[in-house]
């Protein structure tokens, strides 16, 4: 592939890709995302390739990233028509291919409502999908993450073309600011303001970073995006670099996901080959390189200053300085870091405009949010809904409610640094500020459902056990405070709680929260704080009764 020299060349190439493709030709998309892969969807994909191969060119088979409905994997989607087949086994393959060629549907493999028995064939009829707004993850079934042409075929890199040819960096920045895009990594800080700080920093060498570390427990949407559609994030990053004036970018991600690594490496190489990375991108005069970097396996690597230390080649310890990484980041150069999902939002904001973007979502939280749905839920998976969507929609309409007919007890957001709210707050809207006020900040977007049998002391203990192992151990309140909280919680779960334990815990929450160096320690007591707010009697009775749980 010769390097694309201009925007016109890219559009011409895109037209050629589309001209070669027949939208009426059946295409079978097999999900090989993490969950489906775990159910050996690779064998399903191989069976489709083998069977389809016998037919010559009549059918196309595509292996794709996560479709979302992890609960029902391996997932297969057949186009045209977006026919969804669930829990597909290699033995089902000949039947699916035969039906597809005849324009028929394999009834036994489509969605069946567990209560009514009603069937749903097309994606927009399946309850799990029909209540979603899949702006970011919706392209996943259409894309083989190893093929940049698939991304171009769905309009990929058109936003980059628009930014480079029709907009100045200031205009790009303005659009993102007007869109009020808030950071998806947990903080909800306006991305535009952050970009502007780095842009305005006097130092000329600037960096942009994709934080794809995703260490939050029960969060698995970023890896679904990055593994399933790496070019979308890369496109957002290049646009951001153009707006900020950065010459170099880093994708910082997990060391423990071989498929993610393969897809991202390949995406970077293809983008470079096509001239979307490197010198003079599409003839615009803008130069930008991007490097892949891996974490060293602890949660705190995802903390922005620790992450930057890690890129420098140092141990991932948060920096104690009162400085902003937007101004003094990697090697003390201005460095703008955003989460995977934040970057993924950038191309559509540039393509469709801030006005369109702000028409979606709640008053102060715009756009959609990816949510990892898990726990005692009927339908676990990766979900995307507009900000402001009531939690009830997420839990019941999309999630299908609580597993095994049990009663909902609590909803937990934000992993080990989040919080739990009781079931009666189910009508609260999904909103950065609203959820924070309730004590369950949405964090990166991991939503855990807990049923009536859940032991809230054990939940707090479990989350604290996770954090104790993930702390870097540099500062006393985080290292020692969390360890002591874990001791106390462990004792209470064993029925060995003592009078004064709650006061000890309250002091530890307070001091760890105010005195810790970074966000890991500062928010480590948040789950416990939310439990004391809503579930304190459970703790009190466990200490006074000394019972070792249910």
């Amino acid at each position, binding site marked *: 592939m010769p390097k694309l020299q201009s925007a016109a060349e890219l559009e011409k190439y895109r037209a050629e890709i589309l001209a070669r493709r027949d939208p009426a030709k059946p295409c079978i998309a097999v999900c090989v995302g993490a969950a489906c892969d775990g159910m050996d969807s690779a064998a399903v994909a191989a069976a489709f390739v083998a069977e389809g191969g016998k037919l010559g060119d009549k059918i196309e088979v595509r292996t794709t990233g996560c479709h979302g409905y992890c609960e029902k994997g391996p997932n297969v989607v057949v186009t045209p028509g977006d026919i969804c087949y669930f829990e597909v086994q290699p033995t089902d393959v000949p039947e699916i291919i035969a039906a597809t060629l005849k324009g028929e549907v394999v009834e036994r493999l489509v969605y069946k409502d567990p209560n009514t028995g009603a069937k749903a064939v097309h994606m927009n009829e399946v309850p799990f999908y029909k209540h979603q707004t899949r702006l970011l993850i919706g392209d996943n079934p259409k894309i083989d993450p190893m093929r940049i042409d698939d991304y171009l075929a769905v309009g990929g890199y058109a936003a980059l073309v628009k930014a480079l040819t029709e907009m100045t960096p200031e205009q790009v920045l303005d659009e993102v600011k007007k869109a009020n895009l808030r950071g998806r990594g947990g903080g909800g800080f306006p991305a535009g303001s952050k970009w502007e700080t780095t842009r305005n920093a006097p130092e000329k060498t600037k960096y942009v970073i994709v934080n794809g570390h995703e260490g939050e427990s029960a969060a698995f949407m970023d890896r679904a995006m990055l593994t399933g559609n790496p070019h979308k994030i890369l496109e957002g990053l290049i646009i951001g670099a153009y707006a900020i004036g950065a010459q170099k970018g880093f994708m910082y991600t997990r060391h423990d996901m071989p498929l993610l690594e393969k897809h991202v490496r390949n995406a970077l190489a293809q983008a470079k080959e096509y001239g979307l990375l490197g010198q003079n991108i599409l003839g615009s005069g803008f130069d930008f390189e991007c490097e892949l970097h891996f974490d060293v396996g*602890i949660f*705190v690597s995802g903390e922005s200053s620790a992450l930057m230390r890690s890129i420098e080649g140092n141990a991932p310890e948060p920096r*104690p*300085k*009162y400085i902003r990484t937007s101004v003094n980041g990697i090697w003390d150069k201005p460095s703008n870091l955003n989460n995977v999902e934040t970057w993924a939002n950038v191309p559509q904001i540039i393509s469709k405009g801030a006005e369109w973007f702000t028409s979606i979502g709640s008053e102060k939280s715009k756009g959609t949010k990816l949510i990892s749905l898990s726990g005692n839920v009927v339908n676990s998976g990766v979900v995307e809904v507009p900000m402001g969507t009531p939690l009830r929609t997420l839990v019941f309409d999309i999630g299908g409610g609580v597993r095994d007919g049990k009663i909902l007890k609590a909803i937990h957001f934000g992993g080990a640094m989040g919080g739990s709210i009781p079931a009666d707050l189910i009508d609260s809207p999904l909103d950065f500020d609203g959820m924070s006020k309730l004590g369950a900040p949405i964090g990166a977007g991991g939503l855990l459902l807990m049923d009536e049998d859940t032991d809230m002391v054990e939940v707090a203990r479990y989350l604290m056990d996770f954090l*104790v*192992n*993930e*702390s*870097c*151990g*540099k*500062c*006393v*309140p985080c*290292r*020692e*405070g*969390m*360890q*002591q909280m874990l*001791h*106390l919680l462990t004792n209470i779960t064993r029925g060995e709680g003592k009078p004064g334990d709650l006061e*000890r815990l309250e*002091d*530890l929450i*307070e*001091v760890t929260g*105010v*005195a*810790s*160096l970074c966000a890991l320690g500062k928010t480590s007591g948040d789950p416990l704080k939310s439990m004391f707010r809503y579930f304190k009697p459970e703790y009190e009775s466990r200490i006074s009764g000394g019972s070792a749980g249910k």
Partner: protein
Amino acid sequence: MSEMTEIVLTIDGQEIKATAGMTVLQAAQKAGIYIPTLCHHEKLEAFGGCRLCMVEVEARGWTSYVVSCVYPVAKDIVVRTRSAKVDKIRKVLVEELMAHAPDAPELIRLAEEYGADRNRFERDASFCIVCGLCVRYCNEVKQKNAVGFIDNGARREISFIPEVAKDECWDCQECFTICPTSYAQAAYLLTEALAFPGQRKVPIKTTQAPEPTRRVIPIMPVAATT
């Protein structure tokens, strides 16, 4: 900053003159105002690990709690080195550290000052409070890196690296004197006993080599003469 810009701030009700680039701790120390620290050392880069030097800072109407060893001085900020909240933070931090080193003299002194209960939290007699003074002193001042941190979180500890310690520590041992709990010395002797018993480098001719000074406790098995 090339010029020495003078900055006026308030610490505990006193107007203090400081220079730009100074930390609140440095400004306070210069003015003779005491702020407790466990991981700070004037020869070392600020670490911000023990958090004991936290103070209350009021700036533009906002009150926040910052670690004074890294927080830079700024014009017109109001610093309070003691308040109910600051004292509580220090009390709980000292209680946490006393779970490891209940008899460390500096911790006993701080416990008295802040009303800390040495038995409040579950004991783990590791004796080290992981202030990192030994590690950083060896790295920044001596540039030997004979002692380092290993592991993370609650498992973090200091560890002498036998290959380096064998050659470098015999005539230094300066970290022993700055260690607030005597653990550095214990860790070194344990490393020696386990990894290189009897192989410690010693001067061939005492007249040519510096005399290893017995800085800490007299039972140190350093053979000054052979």
